[in-house]
């Protein structure tokens, strides 16, 4: 992506680039700026204030948002942890398996859900929970999140594993390590940047999810995105902008962290 700018130096390219960036970031900028607005209005500027941030934590909606935030963060933490563990095992099996025949197929199968339209996954999961008579609530959200987080956790891990051949595990076993020791002392440290990166990515994907959550959550339970959506339906209040801004900052930090960790090259 960061190819030399000179190569794209045809007329109009710069304008186009700025237009794209503007469309992408202007709304975010507006939300962020207006979250600090002292006015009740969401369109006219009434001076700088943190009142809407205070409102989020102490205002009339605070109880609702706090429980939604608790649900969101606890689900994201558990889902990302479980999904990362499963993705790590899958990546490990790929390393141990060497070049087995279905390697590419297996890789595709694990990654494919990313390309499936989310609405389709959401409907499928809803049908699934109904079919097995599963009561919708916290647990159904959690299960759904674990499922769709797996491919996101798997991608950075498997990218890390490209250079890790079975020979490292063999070398460890050649030097008297058992399978468990070979994994803990040799493979795991090599996989670690990928695992952390995968975990962070899964965490943010879970935290951010709306469509699937909305389908499988059932009545009486909210996550941050569904709570925000619910609030907005009753009229746009500036406290939503404050929550959105906090989510935005948090996501940006996590994604940046994930990217930074994935760049650490422990095979070099």
């Amino acid at each position: 992506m960061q190819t030399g700018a000179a190569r794209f130096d045809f007329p109009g390219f710069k304008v186009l680039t700025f237009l794209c960036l503007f469309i992408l970031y202007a709304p975010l900028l507006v939300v962020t700026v207006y979250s600090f607005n002292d006015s009740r209005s969401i369109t006219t500027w009434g001076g700088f204030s943190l009142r809407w941030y205070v409102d989020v934590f102490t205002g009339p909606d605070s109880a609702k948002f706090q429980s939604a935030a608790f649900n969101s963060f606890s689900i994201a933490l558990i889902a990302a942890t479980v999904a990362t563990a499963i993705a790590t095992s899958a990546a490990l099996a790929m390393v141990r398996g060497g070049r087995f025949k279905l390697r590419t197929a297996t890789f595709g199968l694990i990654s494919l859900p990313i390309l499936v339209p989310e609405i389709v996954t959401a409907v499928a999961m809803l049908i699934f929970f109904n079919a097995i008579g599963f009561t919708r609530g916290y647990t159904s959200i959690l299960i759904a999140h674990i499922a769709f987080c797996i491919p996101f956790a798997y991608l950075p891990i498997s990218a890390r594993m490209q250079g890790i051949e079975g020979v490292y595990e063999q070398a460890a076993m050649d030097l008297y390590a058992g399978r468990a020791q070979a994994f803990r002392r040799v493979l795991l440290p090599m996989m670690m940047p990928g695992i952390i990166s995968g975990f962070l990515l899964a965490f943010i994907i879970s935290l951010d999810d709306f469509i699937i959550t909305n389908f499988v959550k059932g009545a009486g339970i909210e996550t941050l995105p569904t709570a925000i959506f619910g609030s907005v339906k009753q009229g746009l209040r500036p406290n939503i902008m404050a929550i959105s801004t906090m989510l935005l900052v948090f996501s940006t930090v996590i994604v940046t962290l994930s990217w930074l960790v994935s760049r650490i090259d422990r095979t070099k």
Partner: protein
Amino acid sequence: MTKQRPIAIDIQKVVKRFGDFTALKEVSVSIGDNEFFTLLGPSGCGKTTLLRMIAGFEDVTAGAIFLYDQEIAKLPPNKRPINTVFQNYALFPTMSVLENVGFGLEMQGKSRAEARRQAGEMLELVQLSQFAHRKPSQLSGGQQQRVALARALAPKPRVLLLDEPLSALDMKLRKSMQLELKHIQRETGITFIFVTHDQEEALTMSDRIAVMSAGEVQQLGTARDIYENPRNMFVADFIGDTNLLEVSVDKIENGRATCHLGGGHELTCDPVAGVDTGARVHLSVRPERLFLSSEPEEVESLRGRVVENIFIGTDITTILDLGVGPQFRVRASNSDRGNLRVFEPGQNVFVNMERGAARLLVD
């Protein structure tokens, strides 16, 4: 191998199949205690497969492998007192050089401090003490190679396996590592099983060599033995430089075989088992075992015409046309100045061979 020397690794009729492809066909080799043993053969002949079976990374399809009289085919790799220097070293990238070398010792149950201490000694042996705290990626190829060697030697294995450990090094480093490896093998007294596709390397380093091709051992013997008495076409051609002549065996009597190679050429040589009267076989003659003269000077000589002289510093190779068969090469050492006679292209000369220079091959 002397008769009293115990056998370190005994490979008995070992077969290896991958699906319906047979990578090794009933290989039997006994490797002596303290021996520098080399598996030599072209790429794809099954050397790595055999080594991996000794290390425990591949199942044995049929046959048995013994380590000092103990059958090991069923032991997992971490239970075999055998270590490997891997072809691409497989150094653990997240560990320092010292941790890499100490890894095996720690896994054997030694304390971390003791492992570090012994690893430090090992690094001294390979002269890498000053790099102990670097990561493997911060070392040159040659240094990484020595770390891999130190790591495999540190736990004091009974047998060390080396899979083309020098193939990634440049020529000069390679030559010095060959000598260093040989030296370390003598110093430590550990049995080395060394894999290479480079015949010169094998000849330089080995006590004994097993020449392999297509999953079979073609010949097993000392470097000298294999060079001077190649058993078949493959070995003669693969080891060193040679002239291969197609001949018919006319008669075998009084311990000499008389052969003719067409064009009126006839010569006698030692008979070998498996080649009978009337057989059409190949004869191998090493170029350096021949010399040229204007009159026949040995009992065995062939007539030929000089095509070209090639000067390569240490030697002069003369290419001749015998009037039959492919071009024939004769090599004279440049150090042999007093006796060296260089004939001009077009001159008719005699190619003289000492007794024993020509060797019949079983095809």
